[in-house]
């Protein structure tokens, strides 16, 4: 009876897992052809495992019920082994596993295939602790929220960089730590490894917003290195691309004061480094740094700081007051945004400016 209960637990779990609603990173609810291939491979194997599971747990139950000690029972027959049975339970599982191995290997090669038609290449850069996306064929860059056209295979090239750290001789940027790019509903994960460029194809079958996050422990704020993928139909995507290409519009009023602070025309009272030292701002001379995210079209995103916080004025103010208090970082080690010790006025002006960045 005990065993039956134990046997029931995983079965119930799988059932509940498959009907749990509102789990935006559910691997069992694929929304793209690649993640679906994985799902179609996983379920039959789970079925085989389920049969073995029921068999073994069932045998435990039966042996306990049938063979437990009862007074007056004769002493058991001393069986030392049985060669035929041994061969049986060596060969049968081995054959079963051969049956699993073939589709597995087929799918490994299938998923690794380089897509050829209608491919959109994107360079993904893992930073501590946010994602930078650069579209080499479109000449645009953004952060954390990756926009893709629905249906097209997106070929991601995965890199890791830390522009805040000194680069080696002859290199533009220092390499960072290992991350892993993962959007469960679209594809399995692929590690982002310093010193090599891994490739990953993702593809969405539907329009929508997909959640993902870094899946390889990257130290302090690993939990806050999340991401979104926004799949749009081609016209909407093209519109988004056109918007991303635009330089900023010259701001007025409070926003103009914020713009002056941002570019360093008006230094911070604390004498801290201006924002352009780390952030890109298209249309501003020399503002092309990649230590932090490209902020030119910040308001085109719904989140910030590794897709961790909702993008709104209150959160931005809180962030500017002390970034590390909101999201643990190590600015003193060159990884993460430092506290610039801004005055309340400066923060208000900066946020007013940031709100104009459509």
């Amino acid at each position, binding site marked *: 009876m005990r065993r039956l209960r134990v046997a029931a637990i995983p079965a119930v779990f799988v059932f509940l897992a498959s009907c749990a609603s509102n789990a935006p990173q559910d691997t069992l609810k694929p929304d793209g052809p690649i993640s679906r291939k994985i799902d179609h491979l996983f379920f039959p194997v789970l079925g085989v495992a389920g049969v073995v599971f029921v068999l073994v747990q069932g045998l435990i139950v039966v042996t*306990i019920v049938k063979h437990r*000690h009862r007074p007056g029972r004769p002493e058991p027959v001393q069986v030392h082994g049985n060669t035929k049975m041994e061969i049986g339970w060596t060969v049968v599982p081995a054959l079963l596993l051969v049956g699993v191995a073939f589709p597995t290997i087929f799918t490994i090669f299938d998923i690794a295939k380089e897509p050829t038609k209608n491919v959109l290449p994107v360079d993904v850069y893992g930073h501590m602790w946010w994602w930078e996306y650069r579209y080499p064929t479109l000449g645009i860059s953004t952060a954390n929220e990756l926009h893709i056209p629905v249906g097209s295979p997106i070929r991601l090239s995965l890199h890791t960089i830390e522009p805040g750290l000194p680069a080696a001789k002859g290199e533009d940027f220092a390499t960072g730590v290992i991350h892993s790019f993962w959007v469960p509903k679209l594809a399995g994960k692929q590690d982002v490894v310093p010193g090599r460029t891994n490739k990953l194809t993702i593809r969405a079958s539907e329009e929508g917003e997909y959640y993902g996050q870094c899946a390889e422990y990257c130290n302090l704020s690993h939990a806050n290195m999340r991401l979104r993928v926004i799949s749009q139909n081609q016209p909407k995507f093209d519109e988004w691309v056109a918007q991303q290409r635009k330089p900023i519009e010259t701001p007025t009023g409070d926003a103009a004061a914020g713009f002056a602070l941002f570019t360093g025309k008006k230094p911070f009272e604390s004498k801290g480094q201006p924002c352009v030292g780390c952030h890109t701002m298209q249309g501003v001379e020399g503002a092309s740094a990649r230590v932090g995210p490209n902020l030119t079209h910040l308001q085109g995103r719904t989140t910030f700081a590794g897709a961790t916080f909702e993008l709104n004025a209150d959160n931005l103010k809180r962030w500017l007051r002390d970034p590390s208090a909101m999201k643990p970082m190590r600015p003193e080690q060159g990884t993460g945004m430092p506290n610039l010790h801004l005055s309340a006025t400066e923060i208000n002006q900066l946020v007013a400016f940031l709100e104009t960045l459509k």
Partner: protein
Amino acid sequence: MAVALTRAPARPFARPKEEHGFWSWISTVDHKRIGILYGVTAFLFFIVGGSEALMIRMQLAAPNGKVLTADEYNQLFTMHGTTMVFLVIMPLAAAFGNYFVPLLIGARDVAFPRLNAFGYWVFLSGGLLLYSSFLFGGAPNGGWFGYAPQTIGRFSPGHGIDFWLVGLIITGIGSLTAAANFIVTTLNLRAPGMTLMRMPVFVWMNLVVSFLLLFAIPIITVALFELYFDRNFGSNFFNANLGGDPVLWQHLFWLFGHPEVYILILPAMGIVSEVLPVFSRKPLFGYSVVVFSGIAIGFMGWGVWAHHMFAVGLGPVANSAFAASTMFIAVPTGVKIFNWLATTWGGDLRLKTPMLFALGFIGMFTIGGLSGVTHAVVPADYQQTDTYYIVAHFHYVLFGGAIFGLFAGAYYWAPVVTGKMLDETLGKIHFWLMLIGFNLAFGPMHILGLQGQPRRTYQYPKGMGWDFWNAVSTIGAFTIALSILTFTINIFKTMKSKERAPQDPWDARTLEWTIPTPPPEYNFAEIPVVHARDDFWHRKYTEDEQGRLVRIPSGGSDETSALHEQHADSDDSGHGDGHGHGIHMPSPSYFPALASVGIMIVGYGAIYHWWIGAIGGVILLAGVFGWGNEPLSE
């Protein structure tokens, strides 16, 4: 007599004589007392590592947990993993190995008693050094796997990782000496007639584990040294900025790390293979198959390491090869499970606490094995790796497997070690609480992982669909804590109790039950002559024409009680020193402990300043010098 023949030694090298009290434990070279030291220390580390797990579960009980900061959380999961692997399961297996291998093969001690003591003290030194990091500016936070480059340079400020590296290098020394000692003991000190294929399966598995340690520990030691050099001497093994390769660390770590999994599980498999026949009153089904599948696992365990690295980008060919090897290591593992089931089949099952834990082991380990097969399906692993699905999987293997098996051993062998039985009622409460708590804690993690919750994240936001099962898991973790509390109460109750265990309370099969409990220092007054596998059983029972069990009318257990009396007589004439039988036992020594203290201080030197290391070096040399120069006996 030996003393009379040699020159009187210089005083500093005289061997200690304490038989009781604190210093007798420091200087002991008795494999049984060293086994107890290993067991008690590992259990204390188990409480510490378990407390770390409870803090982790409190943090994760609800979204956006505020119990711990990110940095504290990262330190705790690093220390939890490191503790449970290196300071709990490995030394617990060493505890059982130390105490029981000599008893099971009919030997009076291990081959190198002082080296044995040294192994324990070095393990303790490494563990204490590692834990002292909490006092010196923060524990390591790089995960138990310590992936470079997040463990080097500016990604890892502070000394935490240095403590981790040096601590593990030191405990590794202990593992190596223990492995060498076990191998020599098992191969050379078996009683007459104890052929290899008559050895109890636990001894076999311990032997396989010792070989695995002998080859795996050097690999991790090399890796740890390289990382240490990268951090402290600016070498460049793993830093891609300067042409090093972080994937090299992963290969080295997992080339150790996967055999390590079998180092952790095989001793428990050995224990279960001892417990099931006793409580089924049947011999182990397919003894030779169980032994050879254990050896096969030992070999195949070296060819599967990259299944920890499927998402690293090794390419489809490598991934396919390791998928295949990983699937096929499931075969010998499955064979064992079926042999255990066949052992119970047709038996006369006595569902005492050790048997409950052994049956629980089969059930829970099977779940871990099956989820393991789903990881070998590489594309599925692209989704599963680094999620809670993996956390669920290895806890079913290492907790549902190793820990359940070790508890089976604890209840089974407690009468040998203490001379008293652990309480059956409390034992059963312990088992049920643990079984339920364990499944509540780790069962839901399968779902959480498939729903996309990654490991090693100190917080998760609302709205991910993970709230409910995380709460359930936390309840399960505290249920496990309750079960461990029950076990602790059971131990104290038994220690206080005056009731002696009957001789051979389980009607067992192997040699450790032929001697008085707790065993005298010399174990066997007369070295037994072994005539069969399960020799003790065959002294008590034979089989009729249908293969049914028949008690041998005279002798058998009567003979043992006679033996007991004989030992009881000798106890009066001087317990523990073997004088009653004129048996010469190795003399105690302070020097193994002293040398270990030296190594520990050298370790601090490696973390801080060379002059601390120099002090440690002097102490280490003094320990080794004394060890080499003390007289053979006092």
